[in-house]
C-alpha cells in the first residue's frame, strides 16, 4: 500500500488511532477490520460508493453506533466504548439537524449555554462564530428562513462552538445545489485550514474529496482500498476499484509478457509502474486515463505507439472524448480525451486513422480481471 506521509506525520503520534475496527449489523459486516491513523490538523475524506461503510466508520468514531470490535483512541485516550457525550467532537450532518424552533443564535449557543459561561460571553462567542462562517447579523432568524447553504454554515458554527478537537462532517454538502456546493467546498476547506481543527468528512463525491482533502481514504465493501493524498489516489490508484471510482479510466484486457511488458491483442506495451505478480501469459487488466492518451508529436517509433481508428467522437464542451479502435483484429476499444485545439490541429474526425501513444509512465497494470462499474465499452 502506498506510503503517504503528510509533512509532520512521521514525527508525531497520530491524533486518532483506529485499530481493527469491525462493525456487524446482524449477519451483515459493514466494517471489516479497519485500521487507520489520522493526524492532528489533517483534513481526511472517507470516499466510497453508498454502502461502503464510510458513514458507519464515522458514526463509530463519534460513538453514535459503537463498533462490534476494535479500538479507537483520540489524543492518546481510549474512547472505544464511550458514549458520544464522553467524546470530544463536533458533528455536521447532511440534514443539518438544526433545531427548527430555535433561532440561529440559540442553535449556535446550544452547546455553550451548558458550560456555565456568562450570557455576555456566550453572545460574544456566537457572534464570533457566525462571523467566522460568513453569516454575521443573521442570528435572529429561524432555520426555515435560511437557504440550504446558510443552514449548513450555521450547523458548522454550532459544531465548532465548543472548540472540539475533532470535526466530523457527514456528507455535509450533498443536499445543496451544485453551485453552492462548489463555493462551500472552498469555504469549509479554508475555515478548517485557519482553525487547524482535525477534520474527517464523509463523501461519495470524488471531486469533493479531491479538492478538499489532505488525505483520502477510499473505502469499498467495508474495507479500506487505499489511503493517500488526492494526487496519489488519482495518479497511482492502488486497485482497479480505486482507479474506476476516482476519475475516468480505460480498463483493457491483456496478458503479461514479462519484463514490465503486457500484450494487448496485436500490440505489446511497456509500463513504467511495475507489474503485478502474474506468470507470463497470465491475464491482467491494463489501465490508462483518457486524458493520458497522447497524440501530439507521436510517431510510430514513440514508445507504446498504437495505430487506431476513430470510431466515435463525443462532444463534452471543453473537450472531445474519442472512442478509438486499435488497428489489427483487436475488438478492444478505449477512450481518449482530445482538446478542441488538438482536434483542429490534427484534423481528427470520425472514421479517420491516427497514431496515439499510451505512455508507459501512465500505464498501470493490475492482476485481477476487472469489470467496470461505469460505462464499459
Amino acid at each position: 500500500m502506498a506510503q503517504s506521509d503528510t509533512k509532520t506525520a512521521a514525527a508525531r503520534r497520530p491524533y486518532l488511532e483506529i485499530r481493527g475496527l469491525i462493525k456487524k449489523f446482524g449477519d451483515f459486516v459493514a466494517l471489516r477490520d479497519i485500521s487507520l491513523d489520522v493526524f492532528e490538523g489533517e483534513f481526511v475524506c472517507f470516499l466510497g460508493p453508498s454502502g461502503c461503510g464510510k458513514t458507519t466508520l464515522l458514526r463509530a468514531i463519534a460513538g453514535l453506533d459503537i463498533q462490534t470490535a476494535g479500538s479507537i483512541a483520540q489524543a492518546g485516550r481510549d474512547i472505544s466504548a464511550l458514549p458520544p457525550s464522553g467524546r470530544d467532537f463536533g458533528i455536521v450532518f447532511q440534514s443539518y439537524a438544526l433545531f427548527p424552533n430555535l433561532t440561529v443564535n440559540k442553535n449556535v449557543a446550544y452547546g455553550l449555554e451548558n458550560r456555565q459561561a456568562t450570557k455576555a460571553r456566550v453572545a460574544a462567542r456566537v457572534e464570533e462564530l457566525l462571523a467566522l462562517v460568513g453569516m454575521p447579523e443573521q442570528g435572529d432568524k429561524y432555520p426555515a428562513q435560511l437557504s440550504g447553504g446558510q443552514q449548513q454554515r450555521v450547523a458548522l458554527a454550532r459544531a465548532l462552538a465548543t472548540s472540539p478537537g475533532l470535526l466530523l462532517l457527514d456528507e455535509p454538502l450533498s443536499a445543496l445545489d451544485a453551485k453552492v456546493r462548489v463555493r462551500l467546498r472552498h469555504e469549509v476547506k479554508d475555515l478548517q485550514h485557519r482553525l487547524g481543527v482535525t477534520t474527517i468528512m464523509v463523501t461519495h463525491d470524488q471531486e469533493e474529496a479531491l479538492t478538499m482533502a489532505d488525505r483520502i481514504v477510499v473505502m469499498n465493501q467495508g474495507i479500506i482500498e487505499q489511503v493517500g493524498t488526492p494526487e496519489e489516489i488519482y495518479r497511482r490508484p492502488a486497485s482497479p476499484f480505486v482507479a474506476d471510482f476516482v476519475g475516468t479510466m480505460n480498463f483493457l484486457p491483456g496478458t503479461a509478457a514479462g519484463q514490465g511488458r503486457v500484450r494487448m491483442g496485436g500490440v505489446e506495451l511497456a509500463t513504467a509502474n511495475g507489474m503485478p505478480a502474474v506468470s507470463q501469459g497470465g491475464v491482467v487488466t491494463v489501465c490508462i486515463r483518457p486524458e493520458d492518451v497522447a497524440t501530439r508529436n507521436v510517431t510510430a517509433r514513440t514508445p507504446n505507439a498504437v495505430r487506431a481508428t476513430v470510431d466515435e467522437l463525443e462532444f463534452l464542451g471543453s473537450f472531445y472524448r474519442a472512442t478509438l479502435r486499435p488497428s489489427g483484429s483487436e475488438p478492444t476499444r478505449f477512450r481518449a480525451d482530445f482538446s478542441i485545439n488538438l482536434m483542429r490541429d490534427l484534423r481528427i474526425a470520425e472514421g479517420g486513422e491516427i497514431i496515439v501513444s499510451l505512455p508507459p509512465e501512465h500505464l498501470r497494470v493490475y492482476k485481477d480481471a476487472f469489470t467496470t462499474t461505469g460505462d464499459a465499452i
Partner: protein
Amino acid sequence: MGNPAPAAAVAAPVRSKVSRDDWLLRGVLVVVAAFLAVGILLPLYALLSKSFHNADGKFIGFANYQSYFTNPALFQSIENSVTVTVVATLISVVLVFLYAYGLTRTCMPYKSLFKGIALIPILMPSLLPAISLVYFFGNQGVIKGVLMGETIYGPIGIVMGEAFYVFPHIMTILLIAMSMSDARLYEAAAALGASRMRTFFTVTLPGIRYGLVSAFFVAFTLIITDFGVPKVIGGQYNVLATDVYKQVVGRQDFEMGAVVSMVLLVPAVIAFFADRIVQRRQVAQLTARAVPYEPKPARGRDLAFLIYCSVIGALIVAMLAMAAYASIVRLWPYNLTLSIYHYQFDLRDGGGWASYRNSIQMAAWTAVIGTAIVFIGAYLVEKSRGFREGRAALQFLAMVPMAVPGLVLGLAYVFFFNDPNNPLEFLYHTMPILVICTITHFYTVAHLTALTALKQMDPEFESVSSSLKVPVYKTFWRVTVPVCVPAILDVSMYLFVNAMTTVSAVVFLYSPDTALASVAVLNMDDAGEVASAAAMGMMIVYTSAGVRLVHALLTRGIALRTQAWRKR
C-alpha cells in the same frame, strides 16, 4: 502512515459504556413499562386465572369453559354476536367506502363540511345513537312504520346503531387509503385506453385494498366489542358484550364473566394481528415520487355523490338532532313543549350532576397524565440509544391495549385490583383507577400518534446534542416537546374525548362517589329515564365538541405563532 497492520489478535467485542443520559432514559423507560404492566398485563393475567377458578377460588381447569359452551343460551350469544357484527361491518364499510370515494375522488362541493359531519359520532358515547334510534323506531317512535312491523329492539337496531358508531373510525382509514393514490397510474391506465370500469378494478381497488382490509378488521373489532349500542337497543337479543355485563353486574357470576371475556378477547386479538400484518405490507405502497391524484370534474358523477353524501350526512345529523331534541322535550310524545326538565339530573338516579363533574375531572386527568406518559413512552421507544430489549418490550406493551376490548379490560381490573392480597388494592373504587384504566384503554392510538410525530423529527437531533454534551432531558424539553406540540395536543384531545364518552371499561370500576356521565347515561336508560339519559349524553357531546373547538383554536394559534420556524 497509511494503513497500519491490523491488530494481531482477534479483538474482543466492545461493550459500550452507558452514559448518565442513557441511565436516565432507561430508568424512565422501566417506569413507563411498569405502568403498562400494571395497567394491562397483570390485570389480564388475573382475568385469565379467574376463568380457571371457581367462586371459592379453587382451580377447576376448563370447567367454567365447559359449562359455558354447554349452556345453549350463552352459546347462542356467540352466533348472535358474529351475525350482527358481520352484517353491520359489511353495511358500514360499503356505506363509508362510497362516502369516502365522494370525498376523495370526485369534485363535489362542501367536502370539508361532509368530512366534519362524518366525525360527529366520535363525540357521542355509543349509548346515545341507540337512544336516538329508540326515538325514531321504538314503540313510540316517530317513523316506526318504516320497519313494517319489525322491532328495533334486536339485531336491526344493533346493526343500525353500530353502523353509525363505527362510521368515523373507518372513514378515517379509508380517507387515508384513498388519498394515497398515484395519479400516474391513472394516467397510464387512460393512456392505455382502459375503460372506467377496468380502471376501477385494476387501479383503484388494488391501490386501496390494504385500507379496505384494515377497515374491515377495525369495524369488526369495534362492533363485536361494543357494549353501548346492544345494551340500549339489543332487547332480548343477547350478544357477547352484553353477556359479560349481565353475568357480572346482573348475576354477580364473576367466573362466568371472565370466561365470556376470554371468548370476547379472541376475535379482538385475531383482528388485531391480522390488521398489523396488513399495515406492515402497506408501507411500501406509495413511493416518494408518486403524484397525488387530483379528480377532474364530471357532472353526473359529482352530482350523484353529492346526493349520496347529503343523504348519509343528513342521517348522521338526524341521529344527533333527535337525541338533542328528545332531551329537551317535556314528555315524549305527548307533551312536546321544550324544557330543561330532563337536565335536572340531581332529581334522578344515576349520579346527578356530580357524575358529569366526575367525568370532566377524570377526562382532564386522563388527558394531562396520559399525554405525558404516552409522549415520554413514545419518545423512549423512538429516540433512546441502545437497550434494544427494553424498547421492544415497551413498544409491545404499548400495542397490547389495542387488542383488549374495554369490557374485558374493566373486568380484568376488578379481578386484579379488588384483591385483598394486592398492595394496589387501595386504588379500587377511586378516581385514580378510572384514570389509569382509561389511559391504558386508549393507549395504543395515542402512542402511535406520538410515535408518528417523533419519527418525522430529524433523528440526528439527539446525536448533535450529545456531541455538544447537552443532557438529553434538556433537548427533550427545549426541542422535542416544542416541535411536537401539535401532536401532543392531538393526543390530549383524543384522550379527553374518549374519556368523556367511554363506558365499557369504567362501567365495572366506578363507585357511588366516582360515578361518570357516560355511566349515568347507561343507568338512567336502564331505569327508564330515557330522556334524561339522552340529556346526559348531549352534555357529553357538548363537552367533547367544545374541547374539539378549543383544540382547533389552539392548534391554529400555535400554527400562526410558530409560522416563522415551521415550514409549510
